[in-house]
C-alpha cells in the first residue's frame, strides 16, 4: 500500500530533476557536435569520424562487449572507462583542424581517429 505513493513521489521527483537538468544545460548541448560510436569485438565502429573545427564535440561511445573498455586519447586529452553494455559520454572542447587519434586503453588493437576540418 505504501509502495504506490512512494513510487509516485519518486517518479515526480525524478521528473522535476529531469526538467531542471534539461533547462540547465541547453546551450552547450546545442552547440556540441555529437559523434556516436559503438565498440564491439574489440573494435570501434566507425573507426574514422569527422567533425567541424571550433565547435565542442561530444562522443557517445556504446560498449557492446562483455568487458569494460577505456576510451582514451592523448591529443584529445580524454580518458573514460565505459563499462560493459553501457554508453559513455565524453566531452571535448572546440578543436583546431587536424587528426586526433583515440584508442581503447585496455586493448591496444582498438584504434580510431577523428578528423577535424
Amino acid at each position: 500500500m505504501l509502495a504506490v505513493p512512494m513510487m509516485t513521489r519518486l517518479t515526480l521527483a525524478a521528473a522535476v530533476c529531469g526538467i531542471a537538468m534539461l533547462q540547465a544545460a541547453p546551450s552547450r548541448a546545442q552547440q556540441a557536435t555529437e559523434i556516436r560510436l559503438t565498440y564491439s569485438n574489440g573494435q570501434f565502429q566507425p573507426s574514422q569520424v569527422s567533425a567541424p573545427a571550433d565547435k565542442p564535440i561530444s562522443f557517445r561511445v556504446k560498449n557492446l562487449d562483455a568487458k569494460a573498455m577505456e576510451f582514451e586519447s592523448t591529443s584529445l586529452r580524454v580518458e573514460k572507462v565505459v563499462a560493459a553494455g553501457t554508453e559513455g559520454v565524453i566531452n571535448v572542447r572546440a578543436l583546431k583542424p587536424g587528426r586526433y587519434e583515440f584508442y581503447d586503453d585496455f586493448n591496444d588493437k582498438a584504434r580510431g581517429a577523428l578528423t577535424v576540418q
Partner: protein
Amino acid sequence: MLAALIIVFREVFEAGLIVGIVLAVTGSVPHRNRWIGGGVLAGALAACIVAAFTGALSQLFAGMGQELFNAAILGVAVVMLTWHNVWMAHHGREMAGELRQVGQAVADGSKSLLALAVVVGVAVLREGSEVALFLYGVAASDGGSALSLAIGGFTGLVLGAGVCLLTYFGLMRIPARALFATTTALITLLAAGMATQAVAFLERANWLTSLDTVVWDTGWLLPENGIAGRTLHTLIGYTDQPTEMQLVVYAAVLLATFMLMRLTGSQATDRAVAVG
C-alpha cells in the same frame, strides 16, 4: 602479458608515489603503518566496489557521474593534504620540542594520520578501480591467456610497490632537519596538483566552463603521458595543456596553504612564547 604489466604498472605507479611520500611524512609517528595500511586496504576495497558499479556511476548526472565522482574525491584529498600541512605548522614545533604530553601528541598525531590515511585511500581508489576493471575483463575472457595476463598484472603491481619503496627510502635519505620542509613542499604541490586535476574533471563534465582556454602547450617538450610527464603529473600536477582555470586554482591552493600555515604557525609561536 606485457600489455597487462604496463597497464597495471601505470596505474599503480601514481598511487605508489603518493603512498611513498605519505610514509616519509609520517616517518616518526607511532602506529602509522596501521593507519596507512588501513588506507590502502580501504582504498583497494572501495576500488573494487567502484569498479563493480562503474556502469551505474557513469549514468549519474547526465553521463558525467565518473567525472564528478573523481572531482569530488580529489577535492577531499586536497582538503586533507592542506589540513595536514596547516596542522603540522601549528603542532609540529611543539611536538618536536616535546612541550606537549606524549598522550596528547599521539592523539593529535592520529588525527593527522587519519587525514593522510584518507589521502592514501583516495589515491588507491582512483588508480585501483581501473586495474580492477581491466583485470576483471581479463578474468572474464578466455582462460588460456588469462593466466599470463594475471602474471603480467601481478608483476605490474609488484613494480608499483617498488616505486613506493623507492620514493620512501629516497626521501628518508634527506636529513631529518630538512625532511620536514621537503615533505611540506611536496604535500603542498601534491594538493595543488590534485586540485587542478579536479578542475580538469569538472571541465570535462561541462560544469566548469569559464576560463577554459588552454594557456600553453608543452606536449612537444614534455608529453604528459611519458614517464617523466606522468611522474611530474602526480607530484606537482604537471599538465602539458593547462587551462587558465587550472593555473588560477593551482596558484590559489599554494597561496591558501602558505597563508594558513603562516597564520597558524605564528599563533603556535606566540603561545609557546607566552608559556615560556
